[in-house]
């Protein structure tokens, strides 16, 4: 742990010590790259491991240039074995390292699912708190890039269902930059979802500004009065687009970037629903047994008498992820979100 986060229940990442740099628009991929670089500069125990992350810089270039600057001992090209990556990370963590593992695509995490759920998630409890597992598992997730099978999935609920793991998702370059550093500073294992279709979205990143939120907090990214949209990762932009469209129809939608899936920041969502009286949850993952179901249940418990309509859910279907030529029908888009908004108002 870096000195800046000691004593704080949730790590607060320090601002860059390198001095103020002019804010410049960067992509999410580059912001994550810079965040990883800062974490490695700050703590020599941080190391990266994954497939093709060295010379190639990762298939999405998130680790571009890091092996050149930090060496092969800290940026480790691994054999093509996901369970091996995570299992080895457990041993490295026991030896005092802070491994950041890259799973190349969402659908490739399953060979490692055993190590993640039976070992990474449970060793802190198994040891009665004597060992910690400061492992970050980065997973590019979600669809919309026209990919082949196993390259477009959203398995966040599978990990959120496992106690011992923190599950977070960034939606934009600024959050990506800070949240990856906060995840690395956490002594708990963190499954870190990166919205692959937003890797090339740009935003101004001012490294000298402090992060505004902890990584276990949701953020209201657009204020509104009539209905709350809650989403994470790739769907945040979709919800913001929907809110702008709804505004033209005279409806004021509040948009929450959930950012954290485990824990779920129900406080922020419930406070919003107390204002708006309506909630629609949006994610790419199947609706069935998904995050929306959990959020609907918890918000209903807290806001039962304030709700003007049942909590709406927009998401993927209970089918294998479809071939890319029809994925746009599977994925929530502006129209499907607005359709759910209409239903909430019509109730």
């Amino acid at each position, binding site marked *: 742990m870096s000195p800046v986060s000691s004593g704080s229940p949730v790590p607060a990442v320090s601002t860059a010590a390198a001095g103020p740099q002019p804010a410049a628009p960067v992509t999410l991929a580059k912001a994550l790259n810079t965040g990883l670089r800062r974490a490695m500069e700050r703590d020599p125990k941080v190391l990266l491991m994954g497939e093709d992350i060295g010379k190639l810089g990762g298939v999405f270039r998130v680790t571009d240039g890091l092996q050149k600057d930090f060496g092969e001992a800290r940026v480790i090209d691994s054999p093509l074995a996901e369970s091996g990556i995570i299992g080895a990370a457990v*041993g490295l963590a026991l030896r005092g390292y802070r491994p950041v593992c890259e799973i190349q695509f969402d659908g490739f995490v399953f060979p490692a699912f055993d190590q993640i759920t039976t070992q990474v998630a449970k060793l802190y409890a198994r040891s009665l708190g004597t060992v910690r597992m400061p492992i970050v598992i980065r997973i590019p997730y979600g669809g919309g890039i026209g990919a082949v099978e196993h390259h477009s999935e959203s398995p966040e609920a599978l990990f959120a269902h496992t106690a011992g793991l923190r599950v977070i998702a960034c939606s934009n370059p600024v959050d990506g930059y800070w949240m990856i550093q906060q995840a690395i500073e956490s002594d708990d294992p963190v499954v870190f979802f990166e919205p692959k279709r937003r890797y090339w979205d740009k935003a101004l990143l001012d490294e000298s500004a402090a992060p505004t939120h902890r990584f276990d907090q949701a953020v209201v990214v657009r204020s509104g009065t009539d209905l709350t949209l809650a989403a994470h990762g790739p769907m945040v932009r979709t919800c913001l687009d929907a809110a702008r469209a709804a505004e033209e129809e005279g409806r004021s939608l509040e948009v929450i970037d959930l950012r954290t899936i485990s824990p779920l920041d129900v406080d922020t969502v419930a406070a919003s629903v107390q204002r708006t009286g309506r909630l629609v949850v949006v994610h790419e993952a199947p609706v069935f047994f998904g995050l929306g179901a959990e959020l609907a249940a918890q918000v209903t418990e807290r806001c039962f008498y304030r709700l003007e309509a049942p909590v709406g859910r927009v998401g993927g279907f209970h089918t294998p992820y479809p071939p890319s030529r029809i994925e746009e029908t599977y994925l929530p888009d502006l129209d499907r979100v607005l359709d759910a908004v209409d239903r909430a108002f019509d109730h």
Partner: protein
Amino acid sequence: MTTRTPARSRRAAQAPAAEAGPPADELPLIQLLTPEGERIPHPDYPLDLDPEQTRALYRDLVLVRRVDTEGTALQRQGELGLWASLLGQEAAQVGSGRAMRPGDFAFPTYREHGVAWTRAVPPINLLGLFRGVNHGGWDPNEKNFGLYTIVIGSQTLHAVGYAMGIQRDGADDAVIAYFGDGASSQGDVNEAFVFAASYNAPVVFFCQNNQWAISEPTERQSRVPLYRRASGFGFPGLRVDGNDVFACLAVTRAALDRARTGNGPTLIEAYTYRMGAHTTSDDPTRYRGNDEVELWRTRDPIARLRAHLVREGLADDEYFAGIEAEADALAADVRAACLALPDPHPLSMFDYAYSEPHAQVTAERAELAAYLEGFEDEEAAR
């Protein structure tokens, strides 16, 4: 070994002789002590033990077996929910365990009670998970002894990762990954072999081939002797007499030294036998015959070292009686400590889910605490 004539002839027809290796039934068993207790030299594995060191190994074997017997008894009496006996595997565990230096690290399965003993882990620590008061609960870094791992083979990858950490620290420590013949089929074990070979990690894979994975014989896991698996991954594999504590000590020490000097991993197949059931829940009479058990009884690891001590005049009846008495006293201590293990408080299940506050856990803990307090109020009102 089974003789599968069609399979062997197919292999002979397909593989060039140079790559075929020794036939499956040719056992280059490394042995330094015969079942009759005769010390035999081995050109590659010299072992120079003074009488005191030899007696210390005997003491280890006897105490470890006695603690194990007590574990089985405690289960039969309802004090443990389960016990996984190491009966018959004492030499493999004590020999390999005593080969380690203090800075080395052992990653066990759930049966390595003998290795735990050599790492000075108090035996009572091992009983918590079998009694159901915790899932292990010891600090692996205190004695460099990992937590018991129940998912078969998972710990072999942890061992390799730890060894990769040693490399990055520039240390000369080494790691032992313990696993069994059944685990050799697991993907994780094979991935551990790949990673260890690829990074030349300072790790020794110590496979106790006790011939049975619950009810499945080793032949169900492999068509070749397990030690030969290593060659395909690019590192040496050896088969040692797992009931010979001298051989297990010498071979493991050599493999650890090889690892710590930058020469990479070794697979050691300790050829031994699970004399008891898989666990106290198992009934081995359903799947194996008594003849086999009786054959292995003649190879008993403790009897052969005792025969050696007698033959060489290194110990007398008084010594043996003293060790037995010490073993009984240790077992009594373990029993007393087991019975004194308190049940954890129900709310403790929330304590170690996360190391940093997690809103869901905090809320659920408060909810359950309030619910349980309601019962206390009812009790008080009566």
